[in-house]
């Protein structure tokens, strides 16, 4: 049991018999815990695979770790009783060739060869890994049922993914989302690190979440190196994280307006997103926060003149954003399209393990900044923003609430920057340790887990992007909807392909 951003010796993680391990996960989830990460790793015994779980106990701000060893290439799937592990189990099957027996939807996640030679659960041609886009797609049969297949190349400037709709007229019975097109092998490449590329992998796990993912990566490294950050470093990182949230949320509100053809807010927010990105560029030279988050603190510091400039820009952006966004709520044609579209019930969101604004829009009170605070969020509490209706409106409105809270936070922190260094030195990583870091990215919980070997190198590095939890939420939200509402529902989640595909 550890807190967010802490490390413990690997030997302190309970090594459980398989039944006890799997039963423990079910029991913990039934008791209100969430599965933040569940993954495989190579074992010294080539016939065995290690499994590791990180369970988040949000009420007590604790993280529970457990591990087991599986021999024989299979284990009993937890998914029928505990749906939130469904994609984790598919990932374990694909990466390490362990078959979760009884999994109701066992298909590839990213379509690549297994990391354990010769253990393919999903084999394609010549016994190699699966071929992208070739799988047993779900299909509804019937005279009046038709199928719509979209992607991987889409009509806009967006990432690749494949979507299959089973439709009856305009109504969608089911949407299947099949990804993996952005797979570039980052988790595997992180093994053996930290090296000169590791930090740049963290910055490019999802380009719109550079600050979030790099913060989680640095927290892991700092925990393993027992590095204390200065209060100033913590504040600078908090400011960068909230600016990232502001840019993305404001951009999303504009994109949602665009998808219901309300062009005023679409045009204004498109520009205002840039104003927030340019504030991040003022901090570190990059609109996406490249170079800002570094092990030991922040890559760039600010002086009084820069703070004054940022505060002035924040005031202007706040005024224009309020003006642009409030048009949405007072325009009946927008509200008619937002309300009761793409409704996701709170119970479904809970059982699927959704995170971030998508979960909070269904009334779930979960936010890493609140439940597992680290850094500046231990001292500056950002109120939790939730809504109960679970529709497109709720996902839009929660973003707007968060925009207001983040602006307040950034302003307050800029005005009270503590003195000190922006960055501390980071020593070598502790050998044979495990560290877990959670950070609330703008899409939700980012979870990074690192296990070091005897030399203090990453033996396994696990990344869980919020999109990994949330894609299935989008599929559910579309059930019973008109297919023409897909773009609007999709934008209301705005999930990451590259963060999922890694």
């Amino acid at each position, binding site marked *: 049991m550890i807190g967010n951003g802490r490390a413990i010796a690997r030997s302190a993680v309970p090594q459980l018999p398989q039944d006890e391990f799997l039963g423990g996960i079910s029991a913990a989830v039934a008791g209100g815990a969430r599965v933040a990460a569940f993954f495989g790793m190579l074992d010294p015994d080539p016939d065995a695979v290690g499994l590791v779980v990180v369970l988040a106990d949000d009420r007590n701000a604790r993280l529970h770790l457990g591990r087991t060893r599986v021999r024989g290439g299979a284990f009993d799937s937890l998914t029928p009783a505990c749906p939130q592990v469904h994609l984790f189990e598919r990932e374990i099957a694909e990466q390490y060739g362990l078959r979760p027996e009884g999994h109701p939807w066992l298909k590839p996640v*990213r*379509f*690549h060869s297994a990391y354990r030679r010769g253990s393919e659960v999903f084999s394609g041609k010549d016994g190699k890994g699966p071929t*992208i886009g070739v799988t047993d797609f779900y299909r509804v049969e019937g005279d009046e049922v038709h199928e719509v297949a979209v992607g*991987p*190349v889409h*009509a*806009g*400037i*967006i*990432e*690749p993914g494949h979507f299959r709709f089973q439709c009856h007229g305009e109504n969608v019975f089911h949407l299947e989302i099949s990804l*993996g*097109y*952005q*797979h*570039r*092998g980052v988790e595997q*490449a992180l093994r053996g690190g930290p090296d*000169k*590329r590791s*930090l*740049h*992998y963290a*910055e*490019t*796990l*999802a*380009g*719109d979440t*550079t600050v979030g993912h790099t913060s989680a990566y640095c927290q892991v490294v700092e925990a393993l190196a027992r590095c204390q950050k200065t209060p100033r470093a913590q504040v600078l990182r908090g400011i960068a994280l909230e600016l990232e949230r502001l840019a993305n949320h404001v951009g999303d509100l504009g994109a949602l307006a665009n998808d219901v053809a309300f062009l*005023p807010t679409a*045009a*204004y927010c*498109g*520009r205002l*997103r*840039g104003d927030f990105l*340019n504030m991040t*560029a*003022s*901090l*570190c*030279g*990059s*609109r*996406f926060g*490249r*170079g800002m988050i570094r092990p030991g603190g922040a*890559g*760039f510091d600010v002086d009084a003149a820069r703070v004054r400039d940022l505060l002035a820009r924040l005031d202007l952006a706040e005024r*224009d954003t309020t*003006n*642009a966004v409030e*048009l949405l709520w*007072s*325009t009946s044609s927008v509200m008619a399209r937002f309300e009761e579209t793409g409704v996701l019930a709170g119970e479904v969101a809970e059982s699927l393990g959704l995170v971030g604004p998508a979960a909070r829009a269904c009334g779930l009170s979960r936010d890493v900044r609140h439940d597992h605070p680290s850094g500046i969020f231990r001292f500056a509490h950002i109120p939790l923003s939730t809504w109960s209706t679970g529709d497109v409106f709720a996902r839009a409105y929660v973003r707007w609430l968060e925009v207001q809270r983040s602006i307040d936070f950034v302003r307050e922190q800029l005005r009270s920057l503590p003195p000190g260094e922006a960055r501390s030195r980071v020593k070598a990583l502790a050998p044979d340790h495990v560290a877990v870091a959670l950070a609330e990215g703008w899409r939700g919980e980012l979870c990074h887990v690192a296990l070091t070997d005897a030399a203090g190198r990453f033996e396994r590095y696990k990344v869980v992007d919020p999109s990994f939890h949330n894609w299935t939420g989008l599929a559910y939200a579309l059930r019973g909807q008109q297919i023409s509402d897909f773009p609007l529902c999709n934008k209301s989640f705005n999930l*990451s*392909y*590259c963060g999922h595909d890694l």
Partner: protein
Amino acid sequence: MIDVIRARLRQGHRTMRYPDAPPPPLPDRFRGRPRIDSSKCQVGCSDCADACPTGAIDLRRDLQGAPRIDLGRCLFCTECASACPEGALGYGSDYRLAVRERSDLVVGEDEELRLADALQGRLRKLFGRSLKLRQVSAGGCNACELDVNVLNTVGWDLSRFGIQFVASPRHADGLLVTGALSQNMRLALQKTYDAVPAPKIVIAVGACAISGGPYIGHSEVANGVEGSLSVDLYIAGCPPHPLTILDGLLRLVGRLEGRRGVRAGAG
């Protein structure tokens, strides 16, 4: 309705006048084209090349180990500049990073960056005033896509130059490709390319599409589009700033010909 009109008045007209006026100011910490001062280099020192995460720096044997940078691999990160004990490397504010030949991206201190010249002949006649592009995202981090998209916002308004992104390759004059070309996107990219009617052009945007970027050497990617498609324009950066992308596109269609010294303002 009255609120919408009031908001319209308040938000004002925001489209920049560039290229008829200087482009919007870039942030003072912006990392544009790298600057090398090899007079500061110590003989035998390879700190910058050793620190570079993508192997973008090559030390020239002919010039006592002076560094030469492959802008097609450069992530514009801070590693080389921080590693150099003498301050011989840094970043300037020059945002112009688009070229027509891959080899033009490899530049040393004394070598001029040969910025892209315009399409000529039939292609210029066809695309100079109307260029429709299909964007294909093929294994990156989505930052390039986001900053390409920015060109469609009111501030940049790309369509005023006759350049637009279209939904179907059949309606396109060429592809704008981002990403390191994941193995899982190879077939889709080829099919999209094949679906574009000839004559067609290919634009590679960002370190990933040009060289593989942070993923150079991964078996999961093809180190960019080079070798799969013939590229007509390379726009370097990780990701390139929207102004860098716009500069490249305008150069290609000949919109910047005869304009000297269009540089970003300070600040």
